Structure formats: C-alpha cells, structure tokens
C-alpha cells in the first residue's frame, strides 16, 4: 500500500511542476498564438536566479518566489515589446504569427541559454534545501518535494481563481474565446497581451525556482520542460488552463506508473507516445467538446 502511494505521489509531484510550466505556455499560446519554444529557457533563468540569491544571500527559496516571478514578469514585458509585439502587428495571418513566433522562440532559446553558459558555465549547480524524509500513511517522502508540490498546486489554483473571478481574468477568457468579440466590447489587446506574456514567463520562472529546490540545475535543463509543457497543453487542450492542470497530473502519473511497469529508459517514449496518441485521436485535447 505504502509503495503504491509513494509511486502515485511521485507522479503527482512531477505532474504539479509540469502543470505550472504548461499553464504559462498555454496562456501565451491561447491568447496570442505565440508558440514560445524558449519557455524552458526562462524556467532555467528562474532556477538560476533562485540558486544565486539563495547561495549568496541565504534567503529562503520559497520567500524568493515572488521576487523571481516579478523579475521574469518584467523581463517578459521587455521580450514582448521587442519581439512578439512587432510580429503580431505585421503578420498577415494567424498561421504566420505562429510560424514566426516559433522561429523567434528558437532565437531566444539560443540567446538565453548561451548567455547563461557564458555567465555561469556548463556545470551542474545546486543546493540542498529541506532534504529530509517525512512519513505519511506508511509512505516516505522528501520534505522539499512535498513543499514544492503544495506550492505548485497552490500557485495553479490561485491562477485559476484569478482567471475565474477577476476582471482581468474575465478579459483573458473573453479574448481566448473570441479575439474580435473581446475587442468589440472594449478589451485592450495592447494592455492584455504584454501582461499575459509577462505572466507566462513569471510562471516559468517560479517553476524553475521550485525545480532548483529539488534537482540540480544546468543551462540546458529548460528544453525537456518545454517539450513536456507542449505535451501537457496538447493533452489538456490549447487555451484551456484547467485542462493544463489536469493534463500535467495525468502526464506525471503516466510517467511514474509507466516507468514502474516497463523501464526507466522508456520515460521519453512514454511521454511522446501519449503525445502522439492524443494528437491522433483527439487533436483538440482530451477535454474538448
């Protein structure tokens, strides 16, 4: 019993992180058709910021999360203003926006990754935080993982609540449903787009900060998370934030149980298998109507 609980919990814990990464990317795509392939690079930046501030000033990493989120939010505004704003304004069609933003994303990926390589080198970095076991119902967990999981779920739910019950959230949902309709009733894309883009990067940064508490970090850590995030938003449906949350948990569980029943070297085969299967059977996501 304890064993299965541990397995399920480890799946849900990774799933929680996946959800935070994916929600940020999904907001950007759903709202602006920006397929930001460099999302994982900003996650990596968040991880490095957390690591740097924790090891130099000794601040509690959880207390750093708002600062990391704010820093990446501002960075997001800058990136949006200099790259994606121009694409959105000059591209003739949605398809062209997607293609160009994908390519600019590659550019950003090279740029950010190599700036970090130049600044801190290719070595693995890390610190130990709350690395002690906790026992719950006969199962043993690392305290830091539980804390990270709780924080990830809380952040995702907070975001869902914001989208559900605030004016900005309402505007974002309206814009996702019908961009033209939303503009007709007076929602300003000039304000909303940079705000949501920055918000997406802030989420990526927080996810990176959370990961740095559990795993070692390196400049190339971001890419796999970009891919996982793409898989998760495909599972949950492009543009559906709740879908991303559930999709993240599903992928985490599939990976945990799949690796247990087959072999750990099949982890990537499992995730890509899920992606391909979902895209073939239900290209609009598992929960689409």
């Amino acid at each position, binding site marked *: 019993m304890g064993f299965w609980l541990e397995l399920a919990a480890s799946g849900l814990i990774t799933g929680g992180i996946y959800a935070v990464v994916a929600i940020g990317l999904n907001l950007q*795509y759903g709202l602006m*058709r920006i*397929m930001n392939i460099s999302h994982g690079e900003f996650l990596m930046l968040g991880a490095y910021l957390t690591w740097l501030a924790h090891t130099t000033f000794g601040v509690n990493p959880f207390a750093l999360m708002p600062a990391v989120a704010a820093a990446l939010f501002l960075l997001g505004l800058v990136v949006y203003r200099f*790259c994606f704003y*121009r*694409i959105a304004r*000059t*591209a003739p069609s*949605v*398809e*062209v926006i*997607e*293609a*160009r933003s*994908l*390519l*600019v994303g*590659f*550019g*950003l*990926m*090279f*740029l*950010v*990754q*190599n*700036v970090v*390589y*130049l600044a801190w080198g290719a070595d693995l970095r890390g610190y130990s935080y709350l690395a002690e076991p906790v026992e719950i119902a006969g199962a043993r967990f690392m305290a830091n993982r539980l804390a990270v999981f709780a924080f990830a779920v809380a952040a995702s739910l907070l975001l869902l609540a914001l989208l559900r019950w605030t004016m900005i959230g309402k505007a974002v949902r309206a814009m996702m449903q019908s961009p033209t309709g939303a503009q007709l009733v007076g929602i300003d894309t000039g304000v909303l787009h940079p705000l949501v883009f920055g918000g997406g990067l802030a989420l990526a940064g927080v996810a990176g900060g959370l990961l740095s508490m559990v795993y070692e970090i390196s400049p190339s850590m971001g890419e796999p998370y970009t*891919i996982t995030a*793409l*898989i998760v938003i*495909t599972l949950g449906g*492009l543009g559906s934030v709740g879908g991303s949350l559930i999709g993240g948990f599903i992928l985490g569980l599939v990976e945990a149980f799949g690796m247990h029943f087959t072999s750990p*070297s*099949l982890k*990537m*085969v499992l995730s*890509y*298998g899920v*992606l*391909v299967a979902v*895209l*073939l059977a239900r*290209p609009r996501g598992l929960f689409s109507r």
Partner: protein
Amino acid sequence: MSAREQLAATLACGAVLAAAPWLLSDFLLSLALSCLMYAALAVSWAMFCGPTHYLSLATSAFFGLGAYVTAWSLESLPYGVAVLAGGLIGVAFAALIGAAVLHLRGAYFAVITFGLGELTLHLITYTEKTYFHTAGRIISDAPDNAAIYWTVLVLTLGAVATAILVRASRLGLALRGIGADEERAQTLGVDTRRVKILAFALSAFFPGALGAAMAVRWTYIEPLSVFNPFIGFQTVLMAMLGGAHTLIGPIVSAVFFSLVSEFLRLRFPYVFLLLLGLLLIALILYLPGGLASLLRRRGRADA
C-alpha cells in the same frame, strides 16, 4: 529563368563542383561537404513546406533513420545501395506519418512532427539497448572522402533538380494552391490529401538518403548524434531565412550559415550561438520574407 534553364544551370554547377576532391584540401572538402548537405536538406524541406506553409520539424527523424540504415546494413550492402535504402526508408516513414498527421496544421503539426522524431530516437535507443546490448555502433569500412563527396553532390543536385521539376509541375501548382487556401484548392478539384502525402514523402527521400550517406563520416554512430534535433532546426532556420518559397534562397543561406558556423562554432561556441540567436530574431522581425526578399526588392528598384 525557365525550368529547363534552371536544370541546365544546376547541371553546370554540379560539373564544376564535381572537381572539388582533386582541388581542395581535406579540411576544405569537409567544409564543402557540410555546405552541400545543408543545401540539400534546406531545399528538400522548402520543397514541401515552402509552398504549403506547413512547419515540419521531422527532418532530423528522416536523417537519423537514414543514418541507422547505413549503420545496420553497411557490412552486408554496398554503400550506394545503403544510401538508396536510406532514402526509401525516409519516403516510407514520411508517407506513414503524413497519412496520419497532415490534417493537422500550424503549431500542432510542428509539435507532432518533432514528437514523432523524438519518439523514433527513443525507440531506436531502447531497441539497441534491449535487443543488441549496445548504445551505439562502430562503422568499420567507410568509403573514402571523395566517394562520400560525390554521393552527397549527386543527392544535392538531385534535390535541386527535383525541386525545380516540382515547382514547374501540376504538383507544385497544387501545393501552392493548398498553401494559399486549402478549401478552395479542394473545391477546384485538387485531391489535397493525396497531393500533400505525395509531396511530403517525396521531400523526405533526400534527408533519409543524406543521413545514410553522411553516417560513414562519423566512425561511431549513436541515436543522440544522428537524430540530433539541431540538424532539423538548422535546416528549417536556413530555409526560412533564405526564403522558403524561393528556389535559390535556401541554397544561398545554407551555404552561408554552414560556412559561418564551421568557422565560428569551434572557436567561440557560446558567443556564436548567442549571435546566431540575435541574428535569427532580427531577421524574422525585420526581414520576414527571407534573404531572397532583399534580392527581389533590389530587382524591383532597378526595373
């Protein structure tokens, strides 16, 4: 230029380039080889993706499969046959995935072609590890550099010639129609599904065959190096930066970027990629039609 003139020009270039193994040093020959390889990859990518506006990230999957055909068969098959087989495997794989996913568009198509490539990579890694107990394979009797060069040259010329013929044919017209408005093309009697699968499979011959031809350049083959997604990304970037809807754009930009990356990458790896990133962003933002649109703009100013 008419298609006939373009073919003649291609043939003339090929005749000149064929002399390279007698004239160039080993270093320059390998430089020429990588220029040719990327030119062929970019041209064959643009063959399908240029007119239809699809964004395929499957190039590294075709390339890697081709390379593994060589790795598995070079002991029993002659080099030329292995290259041909690599190309045919690329065609078969593309036809299979094309039939399954070509109804998806935009970001969905990009993501799934990338996912399928990675899926193949991990499946091959797993098969090799479980059934053959090996992480990679050593290629023992590789043909000499001149033979590899001529093979890749023939493939490059073949890719360019195919691209010219496709552009001039009904198939090319149908592809452009699909890119402009798929439903209208359907209404006008184009069997869009068949046309797309046919063109996608045809364009996959070259990356497959190139993978098989280039595999012998590595003495040690492992999935991560031959399925390297960077090969696919670079191809897409070169084709799009050159102007994917043109014939000459992808060739020029492939040669340019191969030269730049050979010279700078080894000396300043991080700075090079950083600058590449900046250049990429700047080009997409300020020259979205690709380098070819510069030429056209100048041509219009002259006229």
